[in-house]
């Protein structure tokens, strides 16, 4: 890429664990690339696979869903449903031809600021290598 490609990554972070984990990464001044935009959702179970598909369509290059570890969910079953939905959604998106590395689901608890920053760096790294996502993307 001549001009340095800056990926546009959307992260759905669950309010009780991952969003607080992101804050923890902030308070301990961890650094991760500015390519990540975080959308706060009450629970990873709130993320509708259609939102993820909409993100790709509107121009996101990678989507990351961060939720509580199974068993820790504040609403006690939200992340289990999220896991089932995205077990199917990832396979279906790959079946449609969208690169499966562009969607990732991670369990990050409120205390894991370090893990949050690491996952963000890793994901931004993978997506920059993959380049912009032109599949199922809207024409200008």
């Amino acid at each position, binding site marked *: 890429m001549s001009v340095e490609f800056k990926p546009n990554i959307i992260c759905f972070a669950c309010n009780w664990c991952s969003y607080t984990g992101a804050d923890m990464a*902030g308070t301990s001044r961890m650094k991760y690339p500015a390519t990540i*935009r975080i959308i706060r959702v009450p629970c990873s179970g709130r993320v509708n696979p259609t939102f993820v598909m909409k993100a790709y369509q509107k121009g996101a290059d990678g989507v990351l869903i961060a939720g509580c570890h199974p068993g820790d969910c*504040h609403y006690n079953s939200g992340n289990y449903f999220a896991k089932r939905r995205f077990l199917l959604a990832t396979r279906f998106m790959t079946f449609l031809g969208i690169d499966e590395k562009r969607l990732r689901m991670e369990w990050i608890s409120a205390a894991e600021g370090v893990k949050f920053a690491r996952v963000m760096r890793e994901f931004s790294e993978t997506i920059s290598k993959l380049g912009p996502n032109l599949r199922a993307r809207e024409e200008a």
Partner: protein
Amino acid sequence: MKKIGVFVCWCGLNISSTVDVEKASEELKNYPGVFYADDYKYLCSDPGQELIKKTIVDNKLEGIVVAACSPNMHESTFRAAAEAAGLNPYRVEITNIREQASWVHSNKEDATAKAIQLIKSTVEKVKKSEDLFPQQIPLTKKVLVIGGGISGMTVALEVAEAGYPVILVEKEPQIGGNMAKLSETFPTLDCASCILTPKTAEVGRHSNITLMTNSEVIESTGYFGNFTVKVKRKPTFVDWKKCIGCMLCQEKCPKKTNSDFEHGMGKRKAISVAFPQAIPYRPIISEKECIYFKTGKCKICVKVCPVDCIEFEQEEKIIEENIGAIVVASGYDLLPKEELGEYGQGKYADVIDGMQFERIASASGPTEGVIKRPSDGKIPKSIVFIQCAGSRDNQKGRPYCSKICCMYTAKHAMLYKHQVHDGEATIFYMDIRAGGKGYEEFVQRAIEDDHVLYLRGRVARVYEEDGRLVVLGVDTLSGEQVRIEADLVVLATAVIPSIGAKALGQTLKVGTDTYGFFNEAHPKLKPVESMTKGVFLAGCAQAPRDIPETVSQATGAAAKVITMFSKNHLVSDPQVAKVNEKICVGCLLCKPICPYKAIEPEIVEVRVGCRAEKRQVATINKGLCQGCGACSVACRSGAMNLSGFSNEQILEELKSLCL
């Protein structure tokens, strides 16, 4: 198009150092829908709040976006300010440009561009916001305290004194927890049971406190203010109502066994009460030890019992309680010495841990307070105390400091010296942590008056030789390797969460950290609350701490419960699900998803065009719904939506972030 006000906060240098705040507020000035955009040094300060209120009133704004720190910090502050200015608080949204932008990015240009885009996306979210009004839900004014140690009892007494019913669940047959096992307590050396038994007695007879010992919590459903908890009451095989506490059965019982209460230092009978001042002072039969259970014979206790209250076929009972708040006070245990290979891995009888020493030194203990060697009962001429056994040790996976060992080890040494004046007490330590009131003076007294020898260094190995224990250590101040022969070695093993704490956490859906201590809502600002609303923490369940701190924290937790019960009903978060009945077909795909069983079918009369129709639709019990939104994803036609995080809001946010 809504009239929206955007306020970008400098947060001193926190945000402005890597986000060009002026450029952001400049750019937002002419973003469609934004009527007013400004930046300010400290928006959370009072003048900052005033600025927001004034701007709302002057320009009759319909939505506010505050770009500052995390919503977990000041969302409620800004929403309260907007409410004061007459704007519905749920028209205010926070953009996190501190923890998730300025603090985590170094390149100023990128960070500013990201911040601007985040603010724009929040403006889009506010455009789709609607007025929400909190719900009032009924509240059960009864608290469940888990753990009958000093912290559990303090909470129970405080809340009971305030006039609310308390249920105290304790897994041991008697209350008192670890404190009942102590001999004297630092720094005043007053005897533990002397200061504890008044409390246990008071708990025993307090009208508002229902005592459920020998029981544990197995299930908890519902939400803050309306928990339903199931408590399993394990069988004691003695009918405690009929029993008069004469303890003839304990006397006559032929079977002796190791007493858990004495930590292996003393024996007890198959039917027994842990210690003389136990509350409730009623015996319990240990199913594993009692001869009758094994062979079906004996039954001596039945013969001697004057009121005939032995019931071998007693079953465990499951009791269900409606609870308003839960306080977790599950206390601590000590790291078993079997896990420390370098100190003999539990092979040597005369290498004991702190609690075992307490039992030997305790007047009500197996040795009636005379410090003897467990192996041969002789008075030890020299004792070596080893601090930080298992704590502050990364290899063993416990890097944290257990906080109380420095103090109780000094106390042990002092007690020993008071009994055996010419005895040698040596303490191997790394750093003495005596930060409490009167703590440092206590340690100095042990050194100067009682001539306890403090050697700064770690012990490499302890092994038995010719009946005595050889302690190989180092004295880092003189740089010499040290070899001491001792009659008794006391390990100050690490404080770990009580066994079963992690399982309790799963049952109550309260997270625990990697070591098993419960996660508090905020380390500095909310130490007594857990992440789950309505569940509070007290004592060592949250982190190792000494008795004064435990009592103060327990009183804090009690205060939290009492404030919660002071109102007649709770104000619920209005960000709950809502159904658009015109679209809902009543397929109830959402029903099995709801963790709080808040969705029920209902027959409604709905006007469609010119006809009234009777149809089945889903309805939400606003009280039960906690706003997780998992049901709105299951709804195919989008009839089920979550106010506060609605499909429209998230989609708008998403679209503006992807531009």
